[in-house]
């Protein structure tokens, strides 16, 4: 049988068997509605409460600060749209970066274009990082929200969220602007980074089940006590009426388990994957000429490898790799419905042809040294073949 190597864990992860185990009763006999007053509902309500408390404990938060949602996109939208709309009398200036996930960017663009907010988009340096200074420089008296991702989903760069949070907290106190809040999208991080919201000094934090071996269609928003949001949907009083609707109980139970597993193993797993990652990057760059690592070499997630291979186009590369049983993704326009190349790679100051040739390999729990050795074996001849039919020769200043 052909070898299959899944290297797209930043897109989604498989469900951990232990998570599946925890979820199954709620797809079967434990079907009750947590809002019901009878025992069938009560059993389930107790379980949801336990899961919420367990998650709060891991994040170093209080149970009532955890809101369950349908995923990362909803959590980001609820944080940004909900906070901005509810608190606009305090100011209409928002700060974010040009390399955020679309769930943040599109919400910001909407507020800017349709609801009269002003948004400052910070640009990363050539390594894909945003500094604390950059944020501090653009803070204003009328700034009410800063939203910056913890780690980038395409190039894996890790932002100094704790330092930013610390600075924002000080600025808030000095300028007496209690309504200035800090949100971070941490969807890519649970398996690798510290999620203690006190250490991070964040007011809101987004997590997504499907990126941490948990269920799809499941996310959460940590919302610090006292912060008011305008809900995006209306109905019952679930999730403090900020996110009404009968709970996705199986999802909640699975999310709690997956977060627990991810955080318990994160230090060990980070060391293991960083070693594999660095050897893999070295392997690609020593076997293939004219490549460029996108994103900072060390301030990046231990599972992220994003490389532009010059003179060829990413979609063709992904399809050739697919035929060899290797599953990765690309920043090329050709794979996106919009036909626009990756906004993240372009934000690094690189030309379109470099974005079109970018490939992301995101490692995960199942990734072994043998898997990566196999990729290193099949990749170079594919690159050579595609280069032989390409008329493009990218200027060397972009890959040295």
């Amino acid at each position, binding site marked *: 049988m052909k070898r299959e190597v899944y290297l797209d864990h930043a897109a989604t992860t498989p469900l951990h068997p232990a998570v599946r185990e925890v979820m199954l009763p709620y797809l079967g006999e434990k079907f009750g509605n947590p809002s019901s007053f009878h025992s069938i509902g009560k059993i389930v309500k107790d379980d949801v409460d336990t899961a919420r408390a367990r998650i709060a404990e891991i994040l170093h938060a209080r149970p009532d600060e955890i809101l369950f949602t349908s995923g990362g996109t909803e959590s980001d939208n609820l944080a940004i749209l909900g906070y901005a709309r509810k608190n606009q009398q305090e100011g209409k200036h928002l700060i974010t970066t040009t390399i955020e996930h679309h769930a943040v960017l599109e919400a910001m663009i909407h507020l800017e274009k349709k609801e009269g907010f002003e948004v400052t988009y910070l640009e990363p340096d050539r390594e894909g990082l945003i500094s604390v200074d950059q944020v501090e420089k653009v803070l204003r008296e009328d700034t009410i929200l800063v939203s910056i991702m913890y780690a980038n989903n395409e190039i894996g760069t890790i932002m100094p969220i704790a330092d930013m949070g610390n600075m924002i907290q000080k600025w808030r106190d000095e300028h007496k602007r209690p309504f200035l809040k800090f949100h971070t999208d941490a969807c890519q991080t649970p398996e690798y980074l510290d999620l203690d919201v006190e250490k991070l000094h964040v007011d809101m934090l987004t997590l997504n089940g499907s990126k941490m071996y948990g269920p799809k269609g499941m996310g959460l928003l940590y919302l610090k006590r006292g912060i008011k949001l305008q809900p995006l949907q209306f109905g019952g009083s679930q999730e403090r009426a900020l996110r009404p609707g009968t709970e996705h109980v199986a999802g909640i139970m699975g999310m709690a388990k997956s977060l627990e597993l991810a955080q318990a193993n994160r230090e060990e797993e980070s060391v293991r994957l960083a070693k594999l990652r660095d050897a893999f990057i070295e392997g690609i760059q020593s076997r293939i000429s004219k490549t460029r690592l996108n994103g900072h070499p060390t301030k990046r997630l231990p599972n992220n490898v994003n490389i532009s291979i010059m*003179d*060829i*186009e*990413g*979609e*063709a590369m992904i*399809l*050739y790799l697919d*035929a060899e049983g290797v599953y990765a993704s690309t920043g*090329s*326009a*050709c*794979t996106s*419905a919009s*036909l626009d*190349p990756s906004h993240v790679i372009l934000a690094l100051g690189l*030309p*379109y*042809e470099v974005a*079109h040739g970018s490939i992301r390999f995101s490692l995960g729990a199942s990734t072994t040294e043998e898997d990566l050795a196999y990729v290193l074996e099949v990749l170079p001849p594919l690159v050579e073949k595609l280069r*032989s*039919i*390409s*008329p*493009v020769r*990218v200027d060397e200043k972009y890959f040295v």
Partner: protein
Amino acid sequence: MSHKQEPIKGTQGDVTTADNAKSWFYTDVVKDHFFNPRNFMHADAHEEDFNAIGKVGSPACGDELRVWMKVDPETERITEFRWKTFGCGSAIASTSMASEMVTENGGMTLDEARALKPQDIMERLGGLPQRKFHCSVLCDKALRDAINDYYRRTEQFDKIIVEASRIIDPVSKVTDKDIEEAVLEGAHTLELVQQKTKVGIGNPGCLPAVEEIIRFYKEKYFG
């Protein structure tokens, strides 16, 4: 965008193999040409052995295509057609397929080649996903560019067809090419073309001309 796109002749949605065992974006014919591209320009080939060259696109737009043709001066049939592309799966497959179509059965005459439409290439490929339609258009344009080049080199200037763009709406600076692109992307009504290009929004006087161009390109590509 909330509008529903009309299906383009020769295109399909995301293609799935018949056995459904593995969904794939492309048909088997597309895959065959993609994995085994025909007639690409080998590294050891010499440009001077060809008597017509065409080029279209740029890597900045994600696609660049160059073609090299040998035209028999006696019969004006295409005897050889070679290419190189910086492009995705559908760009590679469309060009590979086109290279077979223009050279098979003794080769097309230049007039026949000029009559070749992007849809003809797509039909032979068994369809392309709708949003990949522009890839086969690219290949059609490179072929036209090479045909013009042949006529230029043989000093048959009256046969050159220049497809220069001209400004249709001086206010929005929208050209006929912009409208062509919009139609290719599925905007088949004045409203949809306006959504994409803003043509005529501040200058309604040009709208009759715009509508005529939309009709022309709809007929050309989808008729």
